[in-house]
């Protein structure tokens, strides 16, 4: 089952600029992410890709411009509210809860979808127990979905590198997002692992979740994304299909340098 891209964009980045003091990390960037697609943001190191993710998720709100998610403005909303609205993310340098089991990492991901109040937790009310059971079952299902169920009770820090990346995806999926932001999910992967990851991304799309991924390596995204935006020095230098982007003069220059 493939969800057809709808007309209304799920995420709109509207003239977003982020300055750190005198440094302009993201410079007046505008683009749309359509519902149900695999959208890729690429660019050389230091192009401002992660800064843009941090702007969307409220970790470092944009200096100017607007972020619109599913028709509502979320510019400057705190991260936990953005997550509750339905945007989940992974981190470029894995940020798992290292001393929590894989299971607990994924259960934590469901925090904002749970209803237990202090009172329920204190007295372990039947509703709380039922919710915990549901959350645990769901977490195990997600661990199976990303293919790391054999590490259910292992501390996150003790997982092999590739499985840690997968656990981060499972934890993000646990927040029940409409839009999943993946920050260089294939970094440090072997070609074989990259292929496996991309098939996982396709499985995520089949669940009706829009995927917006950052990638440093152009080759990885060419195979999966229909639409790509290229950032360089904080500016959008190209947008289009993989073919269009690949043949764009400015993109070639950004990646390979100017020809003399």
């Amino acid at each position: 089952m493939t969800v057809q891209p709808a007309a209304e964009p799920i995420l709109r980045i509207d003239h977003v600029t982020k300055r750190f003091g005198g440094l302009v990390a993201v410079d007046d960037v505008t683009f749309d992410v359509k519902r149900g697609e695999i959208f890729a943001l690429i660019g050389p190191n230091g192009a401002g890709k992660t800064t843009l993710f941090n702007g969307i998720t409220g970790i470092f709100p944009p200096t100017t411009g607007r972020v619109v998610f599913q028709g509502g403005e979320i510019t400057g909303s705190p991260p936990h509210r953005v997550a509750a609205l339905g945007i989940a993310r992974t981190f470029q340098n894995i940020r798992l809860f290292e001393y929590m089991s894989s299971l607990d990492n994924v259960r934590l991901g469901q925090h904002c979808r749970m209803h237990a109040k202090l009172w329920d937790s204190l007295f372990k009310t039947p509703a709380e127990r039922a919710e915990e059971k549901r959350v645990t079952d769901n977490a195990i299902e997600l661990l199976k979905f990303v293919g790391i169920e054999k590490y259910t009770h292992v501390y996150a820090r003790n997982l092999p590198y590739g499985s840690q990346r997968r656990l981060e995806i499972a934890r993000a999926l646990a927040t029940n997002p409409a839009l999943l932001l993946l920050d260089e999910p294939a970094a440090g992967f072997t070609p074989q692992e990259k292929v496996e990851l991309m098939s996982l991304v396709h499985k995520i799309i089949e669940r009706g979740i829009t995927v917006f991924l950052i990638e440093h390596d152009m080759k990885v995204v060419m195979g999966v994304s229909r639409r790509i935006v290229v950032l360089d020095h904080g500016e959008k230098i190209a947008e289009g299909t993989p073919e269009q982007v690949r043949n764009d003069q400015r993109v070639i220059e950004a990646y390979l340098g100017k020809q003399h």
Partner: protein
Amino acid sequence: MTSLRQFWQSGPRRDPNTVAYIVLLVVAISFPILATVATGGQGEVMINVAADAGVYVLLAVGLNVVIGFAGLLDLGYAAFFAVGAYTYAFLASDHGRVTPLGEPIHLPFWIVLFIAMFVAASFGVILGAPTLRLRGDYLAIVTLGFGEIVPRIFKNASVWTSGVNGISALDIPALPLWLQGPWSGDPFAIVPDFKIISPLAYYVIMVLLLIISVVLVRNLHRSRLGRAWMAVREDEVAAAAMGVNTVAVKLLAFSIGAAFSGFAGTFYAAKLSLVSSENFGFSVSITIIVMIVLGGMGNIPGVITGALLIYGVIFILLPQMPEYATGFANSVGLSGLTHPSGDFPGIGEFISRLKFLIFGFILVVVMLVRPQGLLPSRQREQELQKGIAHEDTVIEDVTAEVGG
């Protein structure tokens, strides 16, 4: 059926804490009997000391929520203890008569217990709300300041608190019903409106309150909130990105800890029938932190064990050391040492002066030998082994089918 089997497979069987809880419970129940038998019916003094130790256990369990679970370094925990104690002193004594209020207030102990928890928790919120937005170290300094300010206010606002004299003759707590028996030297009877005076009664109530507290804290730890605390402790940014309202969650930990401290303060004041600003200084806050760290931060049975041991060392072992030393010198034929001569003050006085050196030495040795604490939580144990990661280090048992 499935859920029952699942519960059994995932839970209590492999939890080493189960053993610790059972041991602690057995000790708590058998202690009064043993103390009475060992002293030939004169166990009241020991039971009394044990009931006092219970206050510290309660404080340690509460501070463990703040430091052990949520990772917030609170250096002014004694301030909330003071708030709880003074709340009882105001609301359950004749003291109101000498304040500008002019009227004494006599509320029942059990009601004040809840009021004190609420008041202490409110102070926790007032202090935490502006500071918990900042990161770790700032909170430590702010709480340190708060811990210094509160006892000083109680000391200097003498119109309301009688200053250095403190407030005395607080109401004796009463129970609506109590079972009398041979253990207190009376015939079997159910007595209404029982005044809690005997050390045994205090001890029993303390143990019951502790059991309730431990069950509640343990429930919290294994809930949505407990997980959120752990996550915030490990990585605040990641926790926020996963939908955890980090400020709210930290504030909750802070005020729950404060509520415990207020609760312990009320009990302490009621038992001592006296409050004085001298009893809530920085050294109390530090003692409780030592109890937690030494016992095993984040692990409830560890924290209880740590509290009991440190209490034993500070309030029983150290004060008796001079006596022991004197006795020892006499028994090995060095009775000359027991008398002052020249600069030497006599072995008893000498040891008495070295008390805190010995205490410090014990702490240093324990922490060097067992840095993770006596009964550490699994997380803590792992953290201290950082760098020696083993892929096969599992928390429970991977081979057990979780799906059932």
